[in-house]
């Protein structure tokens, strides 16, 4: 499309300025701090240590453990959110008389603050007074109550369940909006060719939804990778370090441990890892 070269820049300027000021600046600050030995309560002594914080992280088993947990956390949580959200979006795109109400109600989990979600799920998963154990026992699914958050083999699953619950409406709404953008004639044409439902889904719906789907997945992955509030409320990273993902570890190091330089280095490393995923994605999508 022909246009004056300045036009896109004018359109981008406000967003760019806001980002530079409020994000890139603070990120650069933190990047700089990660090269120093910054202890929060010693603001005057901050010696430059180069890459020492980064090297220390590479030798820190908690870093590698956190990284692995983060990978599991992101892949499983985003996968479940996406799957459930897609199913919900397809269903809510069909015609039935109470559809508007169903569409509105489905966003309830997403519309709640994380701290509430964390506390409610902690409470529902409680060993003694939790709804999950109670229902499980009554329905005969459990033979004895389970201490979901105190068992390393279940704790991560429990937190992933909560974050799936919180996040699936996001996919539902974005994909629902994406479905509206698929021209109806494409379906009509496919039906005229005698295509079945599944065929329509594979050859019309999926390709039409692809741009929005890919973007939503990418953005959600970044968001989930960085989110720590639910884990913090529900397990605090425990039991032991069974749910201590990388950003949670960075947070605990920087604030509770007051080792701000090290925490910053962990955060930078997480960002670099995510950035490499994104660049990989961007390169592929340009093809």
């Amino acid at each position, binding site marked *: 499309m022909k246009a004056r070269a300045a036009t896109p820049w004018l359109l981008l300027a406000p967003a760019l300025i806001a980002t530079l000021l409020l994000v890139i600046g603070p990120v650069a600050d933190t990047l700089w701090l990660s090269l120093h030995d910054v202890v929060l309560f010693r*603001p*005057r002594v901050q010696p430059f240590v180069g890459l020492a914080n980064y090297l220390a992280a590479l030798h820190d088993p908690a870093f590698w453990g956190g990284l692995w947990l983060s990978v599991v956390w992101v892949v499983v949580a985003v996968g479940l959110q996406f799957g459930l959200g897609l199913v919900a979006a397809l269903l809510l795109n069909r015609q039935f008389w109470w559809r508007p109400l169903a569409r509105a109600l489905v966003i309830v989990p997403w519309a709640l603050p994380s701290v509430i979600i964390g506390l409610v799920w902690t409470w529902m998963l409680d060993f003694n*007074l939790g709804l999950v154990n109670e229902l499980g026992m009554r329905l005969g699914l459990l033979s004895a109550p389970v*201490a979901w958050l*105190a068992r390393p083999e279940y*704790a991560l699953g429990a937190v992933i369940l909560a974050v799936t619950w919180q996040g699936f409406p996001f996919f539902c709404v974005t994909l629902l909006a994406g479905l509206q953008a698929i021209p109806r004639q494409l379906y009509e044409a496919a039906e005229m060719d005698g295509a079945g439902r599944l065929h329509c889904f594979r050859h019309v719906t999926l390709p039409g939804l692809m741009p929005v789907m890919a973007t939503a997945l990418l953005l959600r992955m970044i968001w989930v990778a960085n989110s720590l509030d639910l884990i913090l409320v529900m397990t605090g990273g*425990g*039991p032991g370090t069974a749910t201590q993902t990388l950003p949670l570890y960075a947070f*605990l190091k920087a604030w*509770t441990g007051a080792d701000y330089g090290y925490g910053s280095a962990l955060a930078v490393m997480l960002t670099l890892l995510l950035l490499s995923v994104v660049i990989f994605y961007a390169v592929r999508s340009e093809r």
Partner: protein
Amino acid sequence: MSGMKRRSLLAGAAGVLAAAPLARPWAQRPTTLRWWYHFDNPTSSPAALVAGFEKAHPDIKVQAESIPWGGGSDYDTRLYTSLIAGNAPDCVMVKFYNLPRLLEMEALEPLDARIAAWSDRADISDDLWKLHLASDGKRYYLPLLYVILYLYIRQDWLAEKGLKAPADFASFLDVAKALTGGDRWGFGLRGGPGGHDHWATFVLGGGAKLIKGGLVTPEALAANRWFIDLYRVHHVFPPSAPADGFVQTIANMKAGRTAMTIHHVGSANEIVAVLGDKITAVPVPRGPQGQGWTSFGDQSNAIFASSKNKEAAWQWITYLSTAQANATIAGLAGQLPVTTTAAKTWSAQPKRFIDASLASLPIAGLMPASPQTTDFTRTVWPQTTQKALLGQIPPDEMMRIFEKHFFG
């Protein structure tokens, strides 16, 4: 842009903290005093206290800001951020664990001279004064409220089994075992952040010491092994213990799922509301040699060195630590007043819980004034203890990790 700027900001903030207070040129205008506080009860408001103070000091306006506690970390994060950015309030409610870090930041105003000249000083007992001494021998905290951890116990279940409340570790284990069975457990351990209070009772009370080498003596290791065995061998804690926070331990008491737990008057009224006379409290059990340890939960006020209104801040915080106002704020916070006058007529909780608190004073202690303490109580203790409770590491390893954390 601002790597350098940021560093100089940090340094500048420290400079401001250390700088001498400037005289206010408009001294005739009322001074506005910023004070940060946190209460457990969201409907508690210090408005009446502020009004009472402002009536007596027409030249001072108190701007009381309630800060979310957030397990301590929200409160601390705001505190440190505002200090580093040079935007701190004049005075704040703080706890002892904040002291070492605030001291290193040179953020606090020493209060020795003011305390020495303070007429109501004697109304706060020496036991309380001696706990707040900083490592440099000065005083930066003015005691405001306190709690002492005691042992909650179901006296109805004791009576059923013909048992007495445990006074030492051996009888504690007997009682805990006797009261465990079915869906009931002898002791509700707080295995999440803050649960070091429970651990300390058994391990510091059992002979471990928070001094270099003191956590890895044979005595200390044995006490810790005994503690871990309560869960792994004797099963007197509920299975959820590694993840339980204070919410769960208190709820389990109220629901009749546990027979004992350790907490303080802050939860007495809500438990009594459910259990009535079935619940009572005694001092925590003592170790084999008769020594004991329980946690002293302090709540103090401090003035920041950066404040330009130190005299006004002093007026306000001493007002809060003087008889009548001290009783009022203790009522709002659900804790015990520090003044002897207010304590004499104190009745905000049933007497047996106050008695158990006071009887515990001789063995009450604080975690060491080390910058490592915050990280210990919030992260290192729960993570390491949970691993030991789950059998991922041996109990002795747990103590070695603690020793390393505190003493390198």
